[in-house]
């Protein structure tokens, strides 16, 4: 399969590390000069960016957190005057003030090409018709994929989020070959097609690019078998650049992270210490090419691991595992770390389970109680209480053996859990309320 930018994507590691060092030093010199927040942070930590001599020295620098972005709302973290900024986006910000990010003309150009990389890796070419079912507006997802498609030369249908029946109609009539959406929305589309009696095989779809929320291998299988497409994962966050940080190639064995544009580290979310190669921990990213909004050691809160082994596709860029959840989504139940994605994985493994579920955590006295609500489908026997009970017990047993924590599984009516056309709300933690 084609590689969009072989010069960079297949760079020998030695050359890559030289480039990373050069760009890191330049970025640090620049932010120290132009961003008050970084100057203050570095000074406080007693670090002069002129003295950074290796990639390992990066570990001495302080982290940047979402809190820093909030404190500097809206433009405090910009490294260029506002008149050099051609685009402003903001992150979803479900709690507190949103965070604001900016792009120069060059940043947009860089971003477009980074997205073109993973779209090409997923199999998109200039012959494709790309239906973007992400919300436009302040969210970076839609624009990123939009620019990437145009850069490749594909035809873009800027559909936007929601309006499922219209999405399906356009998919049929415009002969869309590529679907861009959240993975949960792909399932929503598949289910609606079933209800409407539309055979997904009659569509022209061949590739799906899914991101913006964590999803499991089980969900991939489900999407692939229901929509008859190759479903690929990609990763990004608006604080860093939006989509385009990492994306899967045809081998689907982790997402190639564009290391010529970002330096990735894995830390222990509790201690902030860098973990040995291959460990699971929180992803920390430093941007190397951003002009308007450089980020130094940004704590993404996403839990993953990095694989530096060479990939069969020929790209030398490290592969990032699917995100397993967020360090701030991590539930501590009876002292055990539980990620919602672990439960999702179990539910997919259990045959007959629709991927509509909700995790509810409550506290009774001093005891944490974990409940998993699952929507039933026709596949699960309703009439026979015995079979239903057996099913519930089986799921409970699987959860207990995988997580080491007991959970109560409750079956709920079909379509009774809140439907989402954007990001899924999978967890309700009543302990904090």
């Amino acid at each position, binding site marked *: 399969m084609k590689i969009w930018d072989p010069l960079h994507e297949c760079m020998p590691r030695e*050359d890559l590390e*030289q*480039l990373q*060092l*050069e*760009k890191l*030093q*330049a970025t640090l*010199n*620049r932010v120290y*000069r132009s961003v008050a927040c970084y100057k203050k942070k570095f000074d406080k930590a007693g670090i002069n960016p*002129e*003295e*950074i*001599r*290796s990639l390992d020295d990066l570990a001495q620098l302080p982290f940047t957190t979402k809190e820093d972005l909030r404190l500097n709302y809206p*433009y405090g973290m910009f490294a*260029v*005057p*506002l*008149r*050099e900024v051609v685009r402003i986006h903001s992150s979803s910000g479900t709690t507190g003030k949103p965070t604001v990010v900016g792009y*120069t*003309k*060059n940043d947009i*150009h*860089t971003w477009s090409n980074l997205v073109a990389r993973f779209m090409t890796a997923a199999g998109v070419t200039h012959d494709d018709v790309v239906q973007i079912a992400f919300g436009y507006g302040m969210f970076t997802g839609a624009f990123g994929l939009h620019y990437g498609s145009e850069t490749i030369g594909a035809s873009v249908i800027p559909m936007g989020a929601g309006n499922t029946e219209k999405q399906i109609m356009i998919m049929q009539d415009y002969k869309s070959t590529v679907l861009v959406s959240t993975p949960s929305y792909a399932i929503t589309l598949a289910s609606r097609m079933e209800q409407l009696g539309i055979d997904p095989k009659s569509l022209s779809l061949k590739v799906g690019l899914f991101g913006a929320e964590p999803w499991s291998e089980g969900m991939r299988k489900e999407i692939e078998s229901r929509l008859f497409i190759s479903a690929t994962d990609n990763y990004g966050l608006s604080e860093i650049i939006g989509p385009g940080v990492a994306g899967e190639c045809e081998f689907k064995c982790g997402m190639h992270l564009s290391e010529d544009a970002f330096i990735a580290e894995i830390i222990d979310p509790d201690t902030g210490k860098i973990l040995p190669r291959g460990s699971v921990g929180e992803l920390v990213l430093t941007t190397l*090419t951003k*002009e308007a909004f450089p980020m130094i050691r940004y704590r993404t809160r996403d839990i993953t691991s990095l694989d530096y082994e060479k990939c069969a596709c020929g790209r030398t860029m490290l592969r990032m595992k699917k995100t397993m959840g967020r360090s701030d989504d991590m539930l501590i139940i009876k002292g055990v770390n539980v990620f919602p994605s672990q439960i999702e994985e179990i539910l997919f493994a259990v045959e007959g389970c629709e991927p509509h579920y909700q995790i509810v955590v409550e506290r009774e006295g001093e005891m944490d109680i974990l409940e998993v609500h699952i929507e039933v489908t026709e596949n699960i026997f309703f009439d026979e209480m015995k079979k239903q009970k057996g099913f519930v017990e089986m799921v409970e047993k699987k959860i207990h053996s995988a997580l080491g924590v007991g959970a109560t599984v409750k079956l709920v009516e079909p379509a009774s859990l809140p439907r989402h056309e954007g990001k899924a709300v999978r967890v309700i933690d009543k302990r904090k309320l």
Partner: protein
Amino acid sequence: MLKIKNINTFYGQVHALKNVSLHVNAGEIVSLIGANGAGKTTILNSLSAVTPPRDGEVIFEGVSLGNLSSDRIVEMGISQVPEGRQVFKDFSVEDNLELGAYLRYRGREGRAAIKSDIEDMFSLFPQLSTRRKQMAGTLSGGEQQMLAIGRALMAKPKLLLLDEPSMGLAPLVVQEIFRVITALREERGTSVLLVEQNAKAALKIADRGYVLETGKVILEENASDLLENKEVQRAYLGREKKEIWER
């Protein structure tokens, strides 16, 4: 081809280069831009060991240039065209070119090879061929610049360090010099590290560029992106002069 990691160069007490890292790939034209005193020439002089760096690594084709003297560095394949041409004014054009091949007399090559390379320089710079016997000091500024480049090429460099080749030259002459630099890369595969006040012209022929400020690299990008960078435009390309306001 060339990798520099964390070089620090001092002029007495003055810390002129602070942990500068950069690289030049084979066949690439890389431009260094920045204000006066930013350290552009110092980088070239550090590479040619005119002002050797105090520490850091310089690796050329896998070999460390660490403590090599200037003449050894020329032998390794790096030639410098110094700022202000610095041709030997009282020597003829031909003699200037022959002096460029000085180190090659140490080797086993015959004089014939050197003679034929001198002719090669005359074909590269036809203007010089009519002035072979003339004293270099009587040449025009543009011709002296061509001669200085020709002299550096006589050492058969793989990497050419060019310091302000357009300085003090008429626009048409500058165009000709830049045409030759591009042709050298296209036809002979010579890599070029180019220092230029005329940042716009330099970035137009370069593949990548580094922006320097007070002895530090503050930006590394494709040349086309640097041309689009507003800060570079304002500081080094002479645009938007009337519109300077800050946040």
